[in-house]
């Protein structure tokens, strides 16, 4: 039976809460089901002590979760929009990510920060950003970016069990996506990318909602005899370079695509690594597809003029494979 991303994420949370009494949820409205309904019904099942509504206090929510994680709880907190992670950066960056290191290995922070990102339907400049690249610059943070409901299920389970602070980014455009969870679905290892489609002419590297756009582009390119390999990064920190390098060694061309602003995005890091590690294997410039350098505008015409998608990926490939 097919279920939405929201339902499958809820199922993963539910199972992890059932498995481990240390898992607790907290965040604004989470007991009410959360702004998007992800946590609906969990307070009824696990009680208000384990599913905790909070005030609008992103800094304290994150700090409380970090402090609790140090002491043995496994908090899963929700930052309603990644745009508001801006209010929790001290704790995430200066405290949570560095605890293990600064304490010389005495303490760790097994905590998951679930958040929701990306642009959709006029959420505008302050509710549409994709800020994940900031976090790959922070040693000690793990960054996970599922591309589908089934992926989210397995990656969230691993994130909850990991023992490090994990930023878990759910794209709002994926929330309505449906998939059937395989019976044997289980945790998906963190730090390994996945070849979603194999091909020989170009490697399309993407993550989160952009994986679907890459697959669409690959479909269209196939009609023109261009064979694209599509890789879903799954995890942005750490990045699975061996899988990328192996693919690029075969295809000799790479396009990296994400919705985040191109400048300073995760694609920059991947391009830089390929430009170093795969330099002699490349037959064409490494190309990035990302959001042009502007905030996300409100009006639909502007929003869609700005956001990158399969069309831009296709165009980038066509420029490389001529």
């Amino acid at each position, binding site marked *: 039976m097919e279920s939405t991303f929201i339902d499958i994420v809820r199922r993963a949370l539910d199972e992890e809460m059932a498995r481990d009494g240390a898992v607790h949820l907290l965040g*604004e*409205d989470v*007991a*009410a*089901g959360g*702004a998007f309904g992800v946590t609906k019904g969990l307070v009824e099942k696990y009680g208000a002590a384990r599913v905790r*509504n*909070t*005030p*609008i*206090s*992103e*800094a*304290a929510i994150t700090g409380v979760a970090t402090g609790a994680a140090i002491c043995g709880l496994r908090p899963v907190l929700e930052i309603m929009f990644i*745009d*508001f992670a801006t*209010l929790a950066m001290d704790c995430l960056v200066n405290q949570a990510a560095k605890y293990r290191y600064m304490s010389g290995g005495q303490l760790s922070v097994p905590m998951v920060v679930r958040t929701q990102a990306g642009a959709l*339907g*006029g*959420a*505008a*400049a*302050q*509710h549409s950003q994709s800020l994940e690249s900031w976090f790959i610059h922070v040693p000690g943070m793990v960054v996970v970016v599922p591309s589908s409901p089934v992926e989210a299920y397995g990656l969230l389970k691993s994130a909850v069990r990991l023992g490090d602070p994990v930023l878990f980014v759910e794209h709002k455009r994926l929330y309505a996506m449906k998939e059937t969870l395989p019976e044997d679905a289980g945790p998906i290892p963190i730090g390994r990318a996945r070849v979603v489609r194999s091909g020989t002419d170009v490697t399309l590297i993407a993550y989160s909602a952009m994986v679907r756009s890459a697959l669409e582009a690959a479909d269209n390119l196939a009609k023109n005899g261009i064979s694209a390999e599509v890789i879903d990064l799954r995890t942005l920190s750490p990045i699975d370079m061996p899988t990328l390098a192996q693919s690029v060694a075969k295809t000799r061309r790479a396009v990296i695509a994400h919705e985040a602003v*191109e*400048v300073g995005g995760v694609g920059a890091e991947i391009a830089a690594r390929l430009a170093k590690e795969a330099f002699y294997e490349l037959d064409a410039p490494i190309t990035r597809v990302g959001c*042009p*350098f*502007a*905030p996300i*505008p*409100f*009006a*639909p*015409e*502007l*929003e*869609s*003029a*700005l956001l990158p998608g399969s069309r831009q990926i296709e165009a980038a490939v066509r420029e490389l494979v001529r």
Partner: protein
Amino acid sequence: MAELTLKTLHHFYEQLWRIRLLEGQVQRLAAAGEVPGFPHLSTGQEAVAVGVCANLSAGDYLFSGHRAHGHVIAKGSDPFAVFAEIIGRDTGLCRGRGGSMHLVDAANGVLGATGVVAGNLPLAAGAAWAAQVQGEGRIAAVFFGDGATGAGVFHETLNMASLWNLPLLLVCENNGYAEFTSREEHSKVGKVSAFAAPYGISAQTVDGNDVLAVHDAAQKAVAQVRGQGGPWLLECMTFRMAGHYVGDAQRYRSKEELAAVREKDPIERLQRHLVGKGTPQGELEAIAARVKEEMAAVVERARRAPRPDPASVMDYVSSAVLPQQA
């Protein structure tokens, strides 16, 4: 306080309807899929906007948040430009870049609504600081919800406003909710105005559904703030008649709670008052009808207004003097 003239009261009545009806149109068009994003209506809370803004001039600075429509209208911005922005048109206040949560009308002193809860508070304090430096008698006012008191920057702002004796009017619209979470669940603090005391900031809590009470309190507050007497925190107890945003099913509210609406509705409240004072019911109905027509026309004009040109999407990122980023 001087007794308000009937003319002023009728103007309040008209303004309340203007907001109510404009937002009614937002709801209608949202249902029809014509409003991008997720608009938040101030239905039921209009008396706060009208009562406070009646004490501000166009030169005063105003900041608001995600529930801003009423504030901007009450400050005197053109309903057409407001509505056109809400539906993302090029002739909207922000040329379609901002939308419902980011209304700016600089010429009218509306310096910004922000979608980040409490993010507006220090900005308003900064505007108040600028007003203080300018020395032209301006003040800055900011609207925020009860939920915003959970945010640290609210408290940081109180501290700075008191230290710098800023001409800042802080208006809390306490509607008892932060999204779906009731006030009892997000704070144990009985009154938002209680936060002012440690700082020595003047504060008052009033019935925010009573435009006259709001006006009266705001008048007193503005007089102090404008007279360099320092900041004022005005808490208006109010009632969100609608959901948190358009589309919220409000399963978390009881029938009893929602049933209180007739008693609390600020428009009905003022109507009862005016009828009691002798204004014929018919005259009031005529005002409402006129505003209704006006708003319908505004909306139709806005719907026909041009959409932004996709080719202009990179405009306004930075100063023109800077080399453009890739």
